[in-house]
C-alpha cells in the first residue's frame, strides 16, 4: 500500500492526500493499493499545487496492529512527531497513532517510493 505526503507551504506542516484535499493526520489519508494508478495520478495532481504544498511524494506502507503505517521510521516520525518530546501529531492519540507507534521494519531508508530514480 501507498500514501501521498508533502509539507504544506505556508506552515511546513506534514500533510497527507485525501480525496483531492490535504489532511494533517496519517489516519485520515487515502491509501492506494500498490498497483493502483490513482496513486500516481494523485501525485501528479499534487505536483500541480506548488502554491499549496512543497515536494509531494508517495510513501510505502506496512501493516501494523491490523492498520497501515509508513514503512520507514523517518516517515513514521513525520506522521507522529519527534520521539524526544510528545508534542507533535502523536498528541492526538487513538488506535491509529498506537499502530504507528508500534510499527517497525523498513526496507528502504526513506520509505519514499522511487527515491533512487528521482535522485
Amino acid at each position, binding site marked *: 500500500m501507498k500514501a501521498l505526503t508533502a*509539507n504544506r507551504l505556508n506552515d*511546513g506542516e*506534514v500533510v497527507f492526500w485525501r480525496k483531492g484535499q490535504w489532511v494533517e493526520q496519517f489516519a485520515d489519508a487515502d491509501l492506494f493499493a500498490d498497483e493502483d494508478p490513482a496513486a500516481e495520478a494523485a501525485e501528479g495532481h499534487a505536483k500541480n499545487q*506548488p502554491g499549496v504544498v512543497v515536494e509531494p511524494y508517495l510513501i510505502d506502507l506496512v501493516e501494523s496492529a491490523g492498520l497501515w503505517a509508513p514503512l520507514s*521510521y523517518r516517515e513514521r*516520525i513525520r506522521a507522529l*512527531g*519527534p520521539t*524526544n518530546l510528545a508534542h507533535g501529531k502523536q498528541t492526538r492519540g487513538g488506535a491509529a497513532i498506537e499502530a504507528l507507534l508500534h510499527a517497525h521494519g523498513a*526496507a528502504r531508508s526513506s520509505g519514499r517510493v522511487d527515491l533512487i530514480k528521482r535522485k
Partner: protein
Amino acid sequence: MYRYDTIDKDMLADRTAEFRGQVARRLAGELTEDQFKPLRLRNGLYLQLHAYMLRIAIPYGSLNPVQLRKLAWIGRTYDKGYGHFTTRTNLQFHWIKLADAPDIVDALASVDMHAIQTSGNCIRNVTADPYAGATAEEIDDPRVWAEAIRQWSTVHPEFNWLPRKFKIAVTAAARDRTAAKTHDIGLNLKRSRDGTLGFEVMVGGGLGRAPHIAQTIRQFLPATRLFSYLEAILRVYNRHGRRDNIHKARIKVLVATLGREAFASQVEAEWEKIGQTPDLPDHELARIRGAFAPMSFATLPPVSEAFEAAKLGDPALARFARNNLKPHKVAGYSIVEVSLKAIGATPGDMTSDQMDVVADLAEAFGQGDIRVTHEQNLVLPHIKLDDVAVVWARLAKAGLATPNMNLVSDIIACPGLDYCALANARAISVAQHIARKFAEPDRAERVGELKIKISGCINACGHHHVGHIGILGVDKKGEEFYQLTLGGSGAEDAAVGQALGPALPYDKVADAIDTLVDVYLRERHDGERFLDTFRRTGVAPFKEAVYADVD
C-alpha cells in the same frame, strides 16, 4: 557588548524588508520553490521534517538579557515554547510557519539579531571562547576580533558564494573551548616576546564526511594584518576549491590535497599582492574594543565566607560548585556554567521560561552578560561568589543546575532524525538513554571528564569525530544503527576518533557506553581521563568488552 550602529541597523532593515517581500511572493505563487529555496536559506530558514526551522545567529555566542528575552518571546509566540542551541552557538526554532517568518526576523532585528549567513556557502557565525573577558587564561579578548570578523564577513560580496560553507573560530587561551582545530580557520591569539599581538593561523579543519584537524600555516600573524591574511586564504580557496563536487568542496580538502606548505605558500603569494597596508584601521579596532571594555568589578576577597558556609550546609550546592563553576580572572567572582543537559532532556533545548530565568539572573547578578557554548550549554561569565548560592537556587528551580559539566551526561547531540531532513538516525533519544544510565551523580563524578558527541548523519553537526566517545547514526537497510568512535578530541589536543567496530543497533548503544565506562574505570591509572586511558591502552580492551557483550 557590541551594539549595532546605524550601518548595521540600516543593512538589517533592508534585508528584513527584502525577505518579507520574498516570502509574500512565494505565498502568492509568484516564486517557485526552486526559486525561493536559496532565498530563504540565505535568511536561515530551512524546511525540515515537521515544519520550517529558523536558525538564528548568535555571534561568538554572546547574548544580552534583552536579546534572550526576545528569543523567549519568539519561542512562546511562534514556536512551541522552546528553542534549541546548536554546536555553532546558534539558536534554532523547529516549529516555524513560513507566513510568520518575516515578523520573526523583524522581532530579531529589533534586538540587533538576525538569521543571515546561518546557511549557504558563505562565512558562517563566528565562534569564540565562551569564557572571553572572564578567564585569566586569555591573551586578549577574542570577542574583539570575532566582532571585527563578523563585521568584515557580513554580506561580504567577494565571499558570499564560496565553494562551500566556511567557519571561523577565535580563541585566546591555551585551553581551547571553541574546537578551533575543527574549523575552516582557527585563530589562536598569541603575544610575541616584544608584546605584539598576533594569531596562530590554523586552516583546513572540518568534520563531516572526511574529518580533518586544522594545520598551522602561520605561527604568528601580526594582528594588524589579520584581514588581509584572511582575504588571501579565502581568495585561494575561492579560486581552487572544488565547486564540481560538494563532498570535496570544503577548504579542508584543498589543504589536504595541496599539502600544508603548498597551500601556505599560495596564501603568502596572494597576501603579497594585497600589499602591506594595515587592514583594520586603528580607530575601528578601538571602536570595537571599546564595546568590550573591562566591566566594573567590585574589590572582593578571593574567598566568599558566605558561599563557603552555604556549600558546607548543602551538598547539592557543593556538587554544583565542583562541576559548574570555573575560575574568574577577578577575585571574588566566578564563571557559572548553566547546564542545558538535565538528565533525560534534549541536549541544547531551552524553554522560553528558562530563557527568561537566565536573562533575569544575568541582569540581577551577572552584568547582563550571557554566553552560549558550542557544547550546547550557557554561561553566566561574571557572578560574584557571594551570589552563587542564590543564582544556583534559581537555576535549580528552573531545571538549569544539573551539575554535569564535562561529565558523561553533558552530551552534544544534533537534532537528528527527530527534526532534521538530512539525518539518517535519531541522536537526541540516544543521548537521553545514555544520560539516564549515568543519572546517579556520584558515579558520573567518579567517571570524570568524558565527552560524548552524537550525530544523526555524516554531516557531523554533533561533532562525533571529536568526541572522547563519538556516536554516528547510520541507516542500515532502513534501520537505525550507530557507529562508535573512541579517542577523539575537539580541544587543544584535537584528534579524530578511531572506529570501535561494527555498528550497533539503537537499543544496544547505551549499554555499550556503560561497558566502555566500566573498561575505563578498570584500566585507568591515577588522574587519567577516559581520553588519556584510551590513548595509553588503545582500542583493544574497549572493543573486546563491547563486542563480547553484544555477542
